[in-house]
Structures are given as structure tokens and as C-alpha cells.
């Protein structure tokens, strides 16, 4: 199943600390004011990124926490502090949100630009949930640049069903829709990276 790749990645010198589930009680600790507003809704170019997180029965789960990390509209990766105390002007590229009681999440953000010429722009997503023993990573690709999507090495390594789970849908009002299925029907492709152990 896993592709032979990056075999040249050096081994770790120290054994990594294990992850554990976020549990049910993060709600008073991790969310913060404007955590899901990477930009103000009134800013030109502001985009709604939203969707639903479901379990293996197709049931929305009400206790997941999501984080996104992305480049700005020009494809620049920013390194600016201030995410936890949003001033409404500084784009830090990172946001967090807890899903609501019906498993729905919303971020207000920008369409990321291509970080390199010809690359398919994507947003990095991390999923935490009660019942999920370790975090999951995936990518949210923008749907527009079909040529870049066709040339993307990760998408090329997936079958059509898997590819579909990683490309967001552009809705009529400009919103990006990206649903997350933890298991079963339409299960989202989740990623591993080199140097995890």
C-alpha cells in the first residue's frame, strides 16, 4: 500500500513521543476568539471553507477539532505571530476550529496561491477527535487549476475515488466545500510523511 519514496530520509536519532486522543474535554482549552477567522469576512478575497466530519456510520461527529495551515493568495508561506490574538489584519496562515453539534466546521480564509510555478495549491488539514487515538493529516486541494492537479504527484498516486476525497468543491457563492469521512463510504485519504519513526 505505501509507496517506496524518500528512502533516503535519515533515521531519527530519538524515538518520538506517542500521540494520544484529544479526548472530549478540549472545548474549554483549545478554542479561542476568532480561531477560525484567518481573515476578516469583510476582506476582499475572503473565502468560506466548510464541511462536515462524519464517522464510519456516516453520522456527523460533534467532537472533532480541525486545524488548517496554508500559504497566502500569492503563494507565500508566512511566518507571522498573532494567530491567538487576531488583529483582523495580519494573515498568519493558521487557524483552528471545533466542529459544531452537527459535525459542521467553517473557516474564513483566503484561496492559497501556488507556492511554486505550476504546483497545485492546497491547504494542509489536521484532524483531532474524541475516539481518534492520534491526529490525522490530509490536504485540501483547490479545484480550479486542473492542469496542475493532473500533474500533482500525490494525486497521481491515488485512484479516482481517493483523489476525489482531496479536492474541494467550489460552491456557487465562492465557498470551498470539503467534507471529511473518517471511515467507510468516501473515506478521506489521510497522509503519512517521512521521518515519523
Amino acid at each position: 500500500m505505501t509507496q517506496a519514496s524518500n528512502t533516503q530520509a535519515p533515521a531519527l536519532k530519538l524515538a518520538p513521543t506517542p500521540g494520544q486522543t484529544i479526548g472530549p474535554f478540549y472545548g474549554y482549552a483549545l478554542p479561542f476568539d476568532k480561531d477560525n477567522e484567518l481573515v476578516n469576512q469583510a476582506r476582499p478575497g475572503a473565502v468560506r471553507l466548510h464541511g462536515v466530519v462524519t464517522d464510519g456510520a456516516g453520522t456527523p461527529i460533534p467532537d472533532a477539532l480541525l486545524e488548517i495551515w496554508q500559504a497566502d493568495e500569492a503563494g507565500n508561506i508566512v511566518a507571522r505571530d498573532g494567530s491567538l490574538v487576531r488583529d483582523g489584519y495580519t494573515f498568519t496562515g493558521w487557524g483552528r476550529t471545533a466542529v459544531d453539534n452537527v459535525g459542521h466546521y467553517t473557516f474564513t480564509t483566503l484561496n492559497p496561491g501556488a507556492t511554486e510555478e505550476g504546483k497545485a495549491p492546497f491547504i494542509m488539514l489536521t484532524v483531532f477527535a474524541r475516539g481518534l487515538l492520534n491526529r490525522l493529516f490530509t490536504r485540501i486541494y483547490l479545484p480550479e487549476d486542473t492542469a496542475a492537479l493532473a500533474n500533482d504527484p500525490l494525486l497521481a498516486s491515488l485512484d479516482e475515488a481517493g483523489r476525489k476525497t482531496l479536492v474541494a468543491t467550489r460552491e456557487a457563492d465562492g465557498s470551498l466545500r470539503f467534507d471529511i469521512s473518517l471511515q467507510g463510504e468516501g473515506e478521506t485519504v489521510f497522509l503519512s510523511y517521512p521521518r515519523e519513526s
Partner: protein
Amino acid sequence: MSTEATSTESFTDSHVLDPAATTLSQDAISAEITDIHAAYRQSVVDGAKAETQPRIDFAPYRSSLLRHPTKNLHHADPETIELHSPAFGERDVHALEADLTIQHNGEPIGERIVVAGRVLDGDGRPVAGQLVEIWQANAAGRYIHKRDQHPAPIDPNFTGVGRAITGPNGEYSFTTIKPAPYPWKNHHNAWRPAHIHFSLFGTDFTQRMITQMYFPGDPLFSLDPIYQAITDADARARLVATYDHSITSHEWATGYNWDIVLTGSNRTWMEDEEGDH
């Protein structure tokens, strides 16, 4: 188990156990854990690589049944945004947020402790200037959370939330109250070992992790399906802090040391590779 996700929850009586869950005994859960661990140990004897992370498919933790992907994680070569991490700093976190005992008008009840250590990456490099967030139950095993209806007292002087930015050597230090074990609904008479939740960032966002720190010698370790989802005994031990008398301070607080190792940075070695050519 789908009933758990779909049932409407009453916040006023949710400490009443789920009838389905109560039919499962600790012995039944423990037997499942024992079988999975025995199979893992045999696989290592047969040459499998030692596991460093929890299984995400771990049935003794019943809430995991419908919440783990069934397909293998798909290998990705990290690129661009995945090789960087969000930046945090003094703008984001005040130094006093690392002291959980001074957030209210009075002193919280319980055993005052200091938990201190370093955040390192898998190459042993300190992770400097990064965000560490913690949350925990109070000295009676109660969280300040509407979903926690364990009939143990809330402490009006303890919220149980802290933040810190790591120092130049990756160091962090929290002053807090030792949390107590608390009951949960996985099975009949299920209790979590005392723990502090930790949320961590590295230099690459692929190093992002959330975990739980435990206290040495907890008698509940062997019974807990969340802790035991880590099948490897050495890996489990990495979540247990060490009592450290050099962190203990005279007539004030006992001290624990816990160092956290993230996965390896991909940015550094990929840049090195590029530099070679």
C-alpha cells in the same frame, strides 16, 4: 457504538452510564488488550519494527471503532507548506499563562506541582519559540467542561488551562495542581489514569501532535485502553513523567520532568540534500 455518536446527550444526567457500555466488564476489556499486546510482541519477535505510536484501530477503546480510517495512511512527500509551521510568540502568549495556580482570586486546592522539560525534534534539536498548550482535570478529577458531569467538586480557583512558548533550548515549565483520575464511560467501572493533555507544534506542521502526560506509578495504567492503545511498552513509558527533585522547590511545589520528542523535520534534511548538489 454508533448509538454513542447519535444519542442526544443530556448534560444534567450524563454521568448516568450508557447501559450498553456498562455491560462490558474491565476484565473483558483487559483481556482484549492482553491479546492485542501478545500479538504485537510476537510480531516484533518475528522481525516487525517496534511501534512508536498508538494504534488508531484499537477496539478496547470503544469510541475508536467508527472513528479510525480503515485504509492505510497514504505516503506523501512533504512539500512547501508542509515543511513549515505557524509562528507563535510573546504576542500570542503571556508568560503568566504557564502558571495555572494564579488564574483566580484564591489558591486552588490540591498538590502544587511544576512540570518542566524540553520539546525536541526526532534529531534531538530543541524546538525553540513554539507553542505548548495544556489542559487537565482538577485535584478531584473534574474538568471545567459542560460535558464533564462527574460528581466531583469544581474548584472555583482552578480552570486547568495553560500555555507557554518554548525557550531557546526548547524548554517549558508549567506550575499547576496534580490532577486526579476520573471515571468515564468506555465500560463498567472505567477510570482514566491521572494525566495532563499536551498540544505541541514543531518546525514542520507534519510534526503537529496532541498527547497526554501521565504520572509515575499510576495503578490504573494497565487497565486503561487509551494508554494501552500504545502496544509497545517502551513507547508507553515515554508518556510518563519522572519525579525530579531538582525541579521540586523548597516548601513550595514538587517537580516532574517530561521531555517531548516530535517526529523528524523534513525541511532540514531536504535543504541539506539540495545544498549538496
